[in-house]
């Protein structure tokens, strides 16, 4: 299997006042294409920072983040935006939909940024909303949707440009158990279709969907495999 994500001794230091905080402290990690990786850890453990580094939202202080064979350190800001748009899909705990746009338009946004033609956009958005089971909500604004539905719109948006990697930051954190299960099943379905998933959570129930689990504490991987879940 091809290694789609490769982290080599990644360090991220934040300066808070005069103090240096090691948010990520020497993490090395490989994720194969089509794998489902779960990063577990308590809040403040550095798991979200790690996800941001994989997601090209931030650059490591040292070490390398290699996506699909590309060393992201060598990319310009504009090229990083290209990677985020073409290869990555983000799902956030807070959904982060644009409140002024309808569900349809929220899903449309990444395609617009990519320059997908109008007809193709329309066809694909409706298909994605159908897969997510929210086709009837296409014309509604986020404020008119339940949390579970908003998160499903967000998943559809993340999938809009056929990403190779889906990055999920506590995707069920704001949802009740039932909506959470729906969301997780949808993410798992994408994984089964071949999309690589990296998911960050503190919830052991969610980790069960993953085939590979790492536990992180103080910016370091402290356990791998089944023992990392609990």
């Amino acid at each position: 299997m091809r290694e789609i994500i490769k982290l080599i001794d990644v360090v991220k230091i934040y300066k808070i006042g005069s103090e240096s905080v090691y948010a990520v402290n020497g993490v090395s990690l490989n994720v194969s294409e089509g794998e489902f990786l779960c990063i577990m850890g308590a809040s403040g453990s550095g798991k979200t920072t790690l996800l941001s580094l994989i997601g090209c939202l931030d650059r490591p202080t040292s070490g390398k983040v290699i996506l699909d064979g590309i060393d992201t350190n060598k990319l310009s800001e504009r090229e990083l935006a290209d990677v985020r748009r073409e290869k990555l899909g983000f799902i956030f705990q807070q959904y982060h939909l644009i409140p002024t746009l309808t569900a349809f338009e929220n899903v449309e946004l990444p395609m617009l940024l990519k320059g997908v033609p109008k007809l193709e956009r329309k066809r694909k958005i409706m298909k994605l909303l159908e897969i997510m089971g929210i086709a009837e909500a296409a014309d509604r604004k986020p404020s008119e949707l339940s949390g579970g539905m908003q998160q499903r719109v967000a998943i559809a948006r993340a999938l809009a440009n056929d990403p190779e990697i889906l990055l999920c930051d506590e995707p069920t954190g704001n949802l009740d158990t039932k909506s959470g299960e729906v969301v997780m099943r949808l993410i798992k379905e994408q994984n089964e279709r071949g999309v690589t998933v990296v998911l960050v959570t503190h919830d052991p129930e969610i980790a069960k969907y993953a085939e590979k689990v790492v536990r992180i504490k103080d910016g370091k991987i402290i356990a791998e495999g089944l023992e990392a879940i609990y």
Partner: protein
Amino acid sequence: MYFQLAFRNLKRNSLRSSLAVVGIVIGVMAIASIGIFSANLKMTILSNFQNVTDEVLIYPAYTLHFRHGVVTTSSMMYIDRRTADRIVKLPYVKTYAFVKSTFTTASYRDEVFGVRVYGMSKKAVNRMFKPSSGFIRLSDSCVVGYDLADRLDLRVGSRIEVEGHSLRVSAILKKEGARFDVNPNDAIIVSLRDYDKIFNTQGKGYNFIVVWVNSLKDVSLFKNAVEKTINGRVKKVEVFELEIIINKINKIYDFVSRFLMAIAGISLLVAGVSILNIMLMSTLERTKEIGVMMAIGAYRSTILKLFLLESLILGMIGSVIGALLSIFGGYIVDIMILHSTKYLLSLTTVYYMFEGAFFGLATTLISGFYPAWKASRLEPLEALRYE
């Protein structure tokens, strides 16, 4: 879609957006209305001179004096008759008037008063002035200006005495606007023959000549001809084109209009500050959204464009409304100050409407740039985490 997104973002806080638009409307309207008014003021003033632009005045070279805007000549100095005849035979001359003029005392009933007396041919008087009462006749008669008649209570048939000569008033002229050739309002006009009789100036030549050329472009040609043939060896006459005055007036009023518009521009400046303010607030409120846009792959330049577009929409709406309302504004100012709106519907009005709208748009773009730039410089991760 970008347009839609921008438009919706503005609608999200419609009161704030409307107030910003109102600011632009007021600014654009102030500038354009004042521009329109100044242009109309200029046109009103120029209309007084419009009929004298094909006129050229010729004075003896060494006797040109200006006093209170009126050209006066020393009574000792004349354009001799031979020179005068040569001038009016030059090409480009359509018609002309020889004028003799002096200041003297006259009396009516028991009242003695200082008055300007012109000697002119009947043809010239007819060409230049219209009577408000009576008929223009100059043999042993005179015509008097409107103000003089009004002050002395003169009627057609009244008799005034000038230097011992009794003259019958044959006509009272209509009130004239400011002129640079003959100012009849406070004057008496007699025939050249009577003038010579009264003032003993037979054979002495003329104080000045008014020449009308065929068309405006002939003015400079005629002037050149005079310089060459009359002033060739000795500078005998001074040529005074009224076009110069028109140009001067144009310049002065353009300056006045720019000055007034600059003052009106302050209101646009205030509107610009309000745009700056609301766009900065909007940037702050939407920090997280900007982070999301960046996370899904928007370039910084895309964010910049989106925010600029929002300012531009505000500016467009405000400028268009402001420009349209400026016709109304111009109408009111014209009515109040000029008491006439006959120049309102003209090309210059359209010009100032466009100019106002242009300044409105420019202001919003300038003041919208900083917030847009600031939004585009946010770090994606920090923006996403912003609470």
